[in-house]
């Protein structure tokens, strides 16, 4: 079993915000957004909005969802499921683990 990729310290990601991890680090098709909700939880989704080219890491994270910075489509942090137009496709979630204040990413593993 994979031990994951250490991609950030928890303190690098302010609550309500996100950071993007480049695809050459994650080995995935898209960059991955690490998104931290106000309950302290950290989630990972494919970074590019499924509607137009926008980084979800620049989005608004709150209450279990991230809102795209361009046209406000919302995605579930846990499942990546799209909640409303203009996006119609869900995005891909990835598993995250926090160990000793460090964020480990498991690309392409279900959360």
């Amino acid at each position: 079993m994979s031990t994951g990729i250490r991609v950030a310290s928890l303190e690098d990601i302010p609550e309500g915000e996100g950071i993007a991890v480049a695809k050459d680090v994650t080995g995935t098709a898209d960059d991955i957004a690490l998104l931290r909700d106000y309950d302290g939880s950290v989630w990972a989704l494919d970074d590019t909005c499924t509607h137009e080219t926008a980084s979800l890491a620049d989005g608004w994270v709150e209450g279990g969802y991230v809102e795209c910075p361009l046209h406000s489509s919302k995605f579930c942090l846990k499942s990546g499921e799209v909640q409303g137009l203009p996006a119609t496709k869900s995005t891909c979630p990835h598993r995250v683990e926090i160990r000793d204040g460090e964020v480990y990413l498991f690309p392409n593993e279900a959360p």
Partner: protein
Amino acid sequence: MRRAVVVRRIVVVGGGIAGVGTVAALRAGGFDGDLTLVDAGEFPYDRPPLSKDFLKGDKDIKDIALQPQQWYDDQAVRLASLTTVTALRPDVGGVELSDGTTLPADRVVLATGGHAARPPIPGVASPLVHVLRTAEDADRLRSALTLGARVLVVGAGLIGAEVASTALDLGCDVVLVDPVHPPLAHAVGADVATWLHDLHTRWGIRTVHAGLESLVDRGAEVEAPGIGVFDVVVLGVGMAPDTALARAAGLDVDRGVLVDERQVTSTPAVLAVGDSARLRDGTRTEHWEAAQHDGQRAAATILGLPAPTTTAPWFWTDRHNLHVEVVGDMAAADVTVIRGSFDTPPFAVFGLRDGRVVGAVAVDDSTAVRAARRMIDRTLAVDPGRLADTAVDLRKLLRG
């Protein structure tokens, strides 16, 4: 005594964002009866890209579908495409379709949108004069926006400014005329409006502050007296709501199909949403998200569910590679606070009244407008100094 009517069959007329939003909200709200969406096109598509990526040719009609075909199957929505409703028959409980059939309906939701306005001036019927409302309009216009084409855009509001910006990107020689200066001041405040309008000049568009009195059709070109001679003229002077069905059925119509705050028209079995609906004693709104909210309210009304919570109105527009968002009501502000600098976007301007944010406009600053929206919705008292300080995280300001 009011008798309970079991609603089993709903027809939604018009496949714009309001119509599609209505059927989505009906299913999300638990409606499991027959649901038909009647649309004149091949399938419902999104209109905002028509003046941007779609006009530019970066997206095709499939790219801007509001929902993939599979969605209609998954949601058990019968999509009656390439079809129009020719008459509402609330008396017999149905609608008549262009194919000659009558579709029974316990409730009808009108989401008929509108058509681009053409001012009644001489020369406006020239084939070189375009409007932009549908994908077909955009296709026609795109084929005219060739490299070096001399283009006159009439009206520097949202659509006009977007078309001017796109035409410039396509290599056209663009002139933008509007009788109002600065355009959009009512929506974004005079300072931002002036800054936005001046962007056109900085990018190489000639702006003209004048009213267009007439056009002269010279066959292969059109003259706008006092302005110039053009290969293409695009009218971006607003839209007129499509109310013919409602009017013919005897519904109350006055600059829109009149509805109450639950989207119900003067005929209880008929509701209206989106650009074609007007709240009695209110104004018509023509924005994308507002149309969806209308659909959600109409669905809640039909299903007897509580009305969805309201939120400050929001819209976006794009020009010259900048993303502009507006939330709330800038016209209601008595004080404005600038966050950042107009010289170096991102920046945002907040409108305050009695110490509370009532509106905001942001250029490339998504966080500012999302924070502002929440401040407006929560009627939060804010410190203008902190709002202006780019070192202060607006998310933290929101959390106290």
